[in-house]
């Protein structure tokens, strides 16, 4: 159960990170939120 929970949490974390990485390309090629962060 602990491993399954860890896998689910890991999957969710990976989805969030991947979503953040892919999002700027989807939103617009002129707006990149990464620029806004730094």
């Amino acid at each position, binding site marked *: 159960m*602990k*491993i399954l*929970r*860890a*896998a689910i*949490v*890991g*999957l969710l*974390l*990976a*989805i969030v*990170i*991947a979503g953040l*990485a*892919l*999002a*700027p*390309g*989807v*939103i*617009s*090629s*002129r707006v*990149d939120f*990464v*620029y806004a962060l*730094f």
Partner: protein
Amino acid sequence: MPVAAPVLYAASARVAAWIGSFTLLPCLFAVGFLWMFTAIVAARTTDYYRAMDTPPSFRHMDPMDLQRVLVDYLEAHDAGPDTVLVLGDCVAFGHGVTTPFPSMLSFPGYRVLNVSMQSFRYDLMLVVIQEALNRGVKHVIVQLHPFEDYRAEAAQWRHLRAQRTSQQDDDVAGVDVLPATELVADARANWPVIALAIKEGTDRFYDYSEHLPTGTLSSWLRYRVLSAWPLYRNRFAFDDWSGLKLSYYTERTHRQDSYVATLPDSQQQQIFADQAPFFARFAIADRDAYVDSMTRYSGPARAAAVLQSAGADALFVMAPTFVDKIDAHTALHSDDLAFASDTMRRIVTARGFAYIDYLRDPELDAEMVHFDNLTAKGQQLLGRKLALDLVRASFPRAAEISSTR
């Protein structure tokens, strides 16, 4: 509300405890899943690029990723000894048209790979040329244009090199002295600086002493870290192949023939009037200084040097422009443009390469949309003319054809 508060508190405490049992394991799983997502996105993007016979709108991706994306594109198309690589700007990319002129070229035993984009800066182009040469590409067509902001370009190149080599700007050597490896190393160092300046600035041409950025955490993170991650740099391709199709990149990549007619004279003249300072940059004040600057520091000169050093078979094509209109309505004269083309011809032919000039072709002049784009009909005309002229120029070299069979 007072009732909901303790319930919410209890629920959030349980969630917090659950998340608080975070150990290494969820993070390892996350890394594993991210590795898998990255592999899927990279593979799918390779298929996406491979299916293209005209280049995607590289210009509308993040400039930070461009070097790696262009190399991804070369890899997806298996660029190698059986490839004729075409590099150029808006004209070769086919801005505003479905079928640019490189798509009309064909050579028995070769595939034509068009890796062009709007405003293709020569530093990045030189890096792409070197990457292609590293992959065994031997035949390259470079499309040129006569509009060189030669003073600013040379000054910028000298300034950047002077910074890296701790010299004075005036002491920096040029193409006549530096070996090809140095030129490529300079290009690799320069192109992110220039791309960053273009991205942040409002003007494509800038005063190098004002707009060159110093190294920032942001640029380091974007160029070195994020761009190296295929999932991140393929985000524009993802927008297209995933079906989301929301970005400007996707819109520009799905071509249509929007340049069908030339601009009305009144509109073109208004553009000339509005952009008078832009055209003034290209005026040749001193021809000797121009020849010296172009021979020693220009993009075409550097490209020709690197291609010659690698023993490549290259051909340079001068794109058309409506010379008479420019002469009539801007500070540029037609003999400036002719001299520019002639200078580039001499630079290129001195390296043993062929040069084909379409600058003053009346049929093509009549199909210009503004000074730097052709109508769909103009692209077809250029493709047909170039196909014939390439036969006459014996490109690709016959000796190379027999050696690859």
